[in-house]
């Protein structure tokens, strides 16, 4: 089995950078990381996960869709896109890797979103196992194994380096010319490291979180539950949970006058925002309770209904860490499944 020694990471990233731009998690503050373009000397974060999710690579916060130039009353349409370059994202955890599959179900279903498709086609995903999961982690509730993170190439972390396995054809093609960077080791060390990760997951406070109560076809069961009122009462209606979420993909389309034309761009939007469904004629979701409910019903009921039972959450725990008032999907799931017997 291929093994990359810790000391050879720099060499590996340098070699990978020869064929594409490589993004790595970097500590921007102690234990707070963000993806940055790798350049020689860039220190890769040892933290568990980035504050923002890896969805940004495929579904960025803002993105130009189309430009307009208006001359003599005639509208000229301009496609702002250039040739998309190859890139790789290093250190993607299992939760984020799964989120791409969820985003694919939205953006790659007909009619295909070509902006997203282009990026997916050019992005190589280098995943990594989790050695030190946090209390906010609950990916296993959604059937994710943080010891088998998927992507194109999976890195299994150990004390002195990484076991490296190609997961996809694209991953194999990427690794093929890099052979001399790796040692050949037998795979027992990888298995031991994976088992260690799985054992830690079982000891986490959210290890017992159950999803059984939720799923498609349960709109009637949950929509009018009285608990929504108290669950949502402290919600300040910001978009933090939505924007750090690897699977939230709602967007707005806006026009911007640049002074010499109009650019139409899309940007992240949040169902938590008061104007998300506001129309000239009124707003069907008048209070925060309805907006809050929409976000969780979508992840726990509506999305699985349309996607063969797959939930719209990967248990990455970013919303648990970032919500200003510490309300989150775990509290929602626990509260709604507890109250279920009584109702």
């Amino acid at each position, binding site marked *: 089995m291929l093994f990359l020694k810790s000391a050879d990471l720099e060499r590996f990233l340098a070699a990978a950078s020869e064929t594409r731009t490589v993004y790595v998690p970097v500590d921007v503050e102690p234990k707070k990381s963000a993806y940055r373009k790798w350049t020689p000397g860039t220190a890769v974060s040892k933290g568990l996960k980035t504050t923002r999710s890896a969805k940004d690579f495929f579904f960025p916060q803002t993105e130009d869709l189309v430009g307009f130039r208006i001359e003599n009353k005639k*509208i000229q349409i301009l496609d702002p896109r250039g040739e998309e370059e190859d890139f790789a994202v290093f250190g993607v955890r299992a939760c984020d890797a799964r989120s791409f599959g969820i985003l694919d179900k939205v953006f790659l279903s007909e*009619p295909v979103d070509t902006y997203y498709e282009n990026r997916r086609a050019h992005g190589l995903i280098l995943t990594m196992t989790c050695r030190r999961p946090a209390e906010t982690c609950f990916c296993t509730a959604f059937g994710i194994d943080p010891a088998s993170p998927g992507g194109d190439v999976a890195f299994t972390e150990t004390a002195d380096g990484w076991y490296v396995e190609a997961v996809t054809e694209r991953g194999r093609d990427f690794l093929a010319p890099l052979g001399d960077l790796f040692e050949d080791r037998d795979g027992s060390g990888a298995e031991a490291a994976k088992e260690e990760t799985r054992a830690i997951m079982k000891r986490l406070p959210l290890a017992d979180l159950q999803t059984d109560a939720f799923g498609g076809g349960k709109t009637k069961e949950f929509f009018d539950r009285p608990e929504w009122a108290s669950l949502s009462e402290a919600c300040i209606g910001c978009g933090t949970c939505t924007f750090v979420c690897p699977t939230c993909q709602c967007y707005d389309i806006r026009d911007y006058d640049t002074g010499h034309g109009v650019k139409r761009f899309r940007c992240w939007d949040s169902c938590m925002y008061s104007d998300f469904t506001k129309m000239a004629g009124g707003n069907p979701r008048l209070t925060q309770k309805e907006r809050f409910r929409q976000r969780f019903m979508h992840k726990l009921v509506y999305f699985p209904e349309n996607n063969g039972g797959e939930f719209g959450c990967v248990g990455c725990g970013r919303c648990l860490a970032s919500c200003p008032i510490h309300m989150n999907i775990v509290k929602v799931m626990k509260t709604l499944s507890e109250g279920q017997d009584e109702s």
Partner: protein
Amino acid sequence: MNPETLIPHPVVVEDVRIDTPDVKTFRILTREGDKPFDHLPGQCAMISVPGVGEGMFSITSSPTNRAYMEFSIKKCGHLTSWLHALEPGMEVTVRGPYGRPFPVEEDLLGRDLLFIAGGIGLAPLRSVINYVRDNRERYGDVEIIYGARSKDDLVDYREILEEWQTTPGVRVHLTIDREQVGWDGHVGFVPNYVKELNPDLKKTVLVCGPPIMIKFTVQGLTELGFAPEQIWTTMELRMKCGVGKCGRCNIGAKYVCKDGPVFRYDELGELPDEY
């Protein structure tokens, strides 16, 4: 059409017709003078004024009209105010068609049809009515009940009088909310008028209008004995992408832009009550 669904196409506003004090009908063509694309009755398209915004509107012309496409648009917000300021010869952009149409070649085929519209709600039904008129032999008896605030607020009044009322097998009942000088027709709200007319229970119903009018009309129809499975309507929620991805019009497991805007009434009953 461009496969890039979010990239619109420039089209020319060939004609602007003033229908009512707040409704105008826009006739659009490509620069080459063609109809921009084909559609089915009840489908919508995104119209935009670059720099102002984009909005989803019913295509009001019939698919059988091969020459051009029409949209009847009520002035009610930022974008529609801009659209109302358009003059013939100016350009806007369009993309589409979007959404699920009325099932003109399936459930409606061979049926006796009852169209019920209130105000600008005639817009999506006009496409179906003209489609049915142009394929007259494939449908049964056609009855249209249409109401507006006043005589001046009846959209397509000239077409109703000159074309619909003269089509064999088509009956039109008009009503306005309050008495008005120069109006000797029916006065009263649509839901009440429907009950007065007591339509045959065999009919398939297509109802469009303000949410409150739809609600009371369906209530009345149910009292008369109509089943929800006989009633088709359209829904309106805020939309941005038009292709079921931006999340704006998500209600329950449905996306109005993609799974609607046309719904059978029993399907609406399955959705959570937030529209």
